[in-house]
């Protein structure tokens, strides 16, 4: 039993099941209805952030364009279902394929760029999208925004708010399992090698061109899925939503939660998007200081947990082990450590 629980799949499914109970709790009056909505949007943001985590955490490529691609998918899905009155499935397909093709195009461009240069280049792409969102009013509704209804599956089942929430949770669990599989396999190893050193990875036979495109592809697919879910869950989309701040928030999720960690992405998303909404907004006296608290939290987490909250359990267990007189990563106890000579300390540091 313990072995089954340790398996990542069961952990993902367990998390999904816990999230699925929230609407019942809300119905029973244990939590507010708005809590379910906040958690729903948090999950949507988690999906987009997970895509960015594959891109940044595994392959070390930064993108400040996540919000732009998410917005593009949202507008396409809204346009196809509302204005063209085509089925939801077709809208999902269009809203994933078009941004992903563009994302792969950015991946091709990205071969030239590195570091912050790549970040700003993707930001430029997102800003072009944002100008389109504002100005092409026949497609996006301009500043008044685009409206979208709840998803209608197979042309017959029109989902309500709670059922859409279930759909979001199910999609999240599926994506978690998919990304877990992808990153544990040879794709993950290739991306890891690429992050360490592109030249070395190339020498080992990793095709940089192919894997950069795949990394950008995964990031855009997840951003698109997240955009589609957003527009059908929230019901509308404004051009002002999809700006640099949102892209930076996605980066913050990853840094706070932890690189290359799926659960870390969820925790980070919860801290960045849900925490202040759930705990501060309901109290009128504190509602005004939510951005302040969010900013301070971000700074504190980065200063004191630079490896992300996902690594907190390692830190705690190491600390406990050292307290109990057990051996740490260097095979030394606390008392032994005190008696080290300077040269030995230096040797430890270089390890």
């Amino acid at each position, binding site marked *: 039993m313990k072995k089954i629980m340790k398996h990542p799949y069961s952990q993902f499914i367990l998390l999904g099941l816990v999230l699925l109970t929230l609407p019942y709790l809300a119905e029973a009056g244990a939590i507010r209805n708005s809590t379910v909505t906040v958690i729903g949007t948090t999950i949507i943001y988690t999906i987009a952030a997970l895509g960015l985590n594959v891109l940044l955490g595994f392959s070390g490529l930064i993108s400040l364009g996540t919000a732009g691609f998410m917005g593009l998918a949202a507008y396409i899905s809204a346009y196809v279902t509302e204005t063209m009155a085509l089925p939801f499935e077709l809208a999902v397909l269009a809203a994933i394929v078009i941004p992903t093709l563009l994302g792969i195009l950015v991946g091709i461009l990205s071969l030239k760029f590195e570091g912050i*240069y790549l970040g700003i280049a993707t930001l430029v792409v997102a800003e072009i999208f944002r100008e389109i969102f504002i100005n092409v009013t026949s497609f996006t509704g301009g500043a008044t925004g685009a409206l979208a209804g709840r998803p209608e599956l197979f042309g017959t089942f029109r989902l309500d708010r709670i059922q859409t929430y279930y759909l979001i949770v199910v999609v999240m669990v599926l994506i978690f399992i998919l990304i877990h599989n992808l990153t544990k396999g040879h794709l993950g190893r290739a991306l890891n090698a690429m992050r360490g050193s592109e030249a070395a990875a190339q020498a080992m036979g990793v095709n940089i061109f192919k894997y950069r495109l795949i990394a950008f592809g995964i990031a855009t697919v997840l951003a698109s899925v997240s955009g589609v879910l957003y527009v059908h869950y929230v019901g509308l989309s404004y051009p002002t939503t999809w700006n640099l701040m949102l892209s*930076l928030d996605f*980066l*913050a999720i990853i840094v706070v939660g932890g690189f290359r960690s799926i659960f870390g992405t969820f925790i980070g998303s919860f801290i960045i998007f849900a925490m202040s909404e759930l705990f501060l907004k309901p109290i009128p006296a504190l509602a005004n200081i939510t951005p302040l608290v969010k900013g301070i939290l*971000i700074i504190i987490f980065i200063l004191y947990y*630079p490896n992300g909250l996902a690594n907190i359990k390692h830190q705690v267990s190491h600390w406990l082990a050292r307290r109990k007189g057990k051996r740490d990563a260097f095979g030394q106890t606390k008392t032994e450590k005190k008696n080290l000579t300077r040269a030995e300390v230096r040797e430890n540091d270089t390890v």
Partner: protein
Amino acid sequence: MANFIGVFLRSLEYGSFYALSALSIILVYKTSYTTNFAQATLGMFNTFLVATLVMRQGWSLYAAIPIGIVSAVILGVLIDIVIIRRASKAGPVGKQIITLGLISVFLGLTPIFFGVDNLSLPRFISSGTLTIMGTPFSYNALFNILFGIFIMLTMFATIQKTKIGLAIRTTASNETTARIMGVPTKTVTMAAWAVAIVLSLISGLMTAPYSSVSLTFMNDVQITAFLATVVGGFATFHGPVIAAYGISVLLNIFQVYMPSGTIWGKPLLYAVLLLIMYFKPYGIFGKQRLKKV
């Protein structure tokens, strides 16, 4: 022709706003090794302080500006001591996200200190126009152009010719070596943050009369400034500044001379810049840093 001179002068004026912001970004980047996304927000915060003193307390603009500068310097010193110095363990992306945290903090503080209403700010020179080759042009715009260029030249002279500038350049090229050589890198970084926030404030004070002082009024300037730093290259101090003026000229030409340019001028500019970045990935004035394998 008269129209073109008007367009060109306006580009130079807006170029000053962008160049000041770009210089602010590059100063922090060179000394703290992080892209300061909070540049616009910090400039906004101090501009709000000046605007509040002028509009609510009835101060003269010229009396309020020194207070704004003092506040900017204090903020710069505090941010460096309280946050940036302690962030040595954070990775490069972590440091960038710290500046995102700063954005959030100051977006939260501004309404608490200065209220939620937008304010308007008077110009440096409130009235008077002169005619340059048949183009009417306000004294304030002329002042913005000249003052912007004056600050740029002063900054470059300081960086290139003085001992302080040498300390900045050494810190920028290699912090550890600089510290070994006896350069007080901590003080240099602190001073760079202070000067950077003052530059953002000046950029904000120049921009504000053309819009209103709101929480987001500097964001467009900041995005253009980021573009300028990338197009000009992070390698030099002068690259981003020249690029900022260039981008401003291009943008105004697109917006005025292209059909429906007010709508499509910006996207076209972005596309052109992306193309330039594609062929010059380390900036027009930059050079690639070679990596050892």
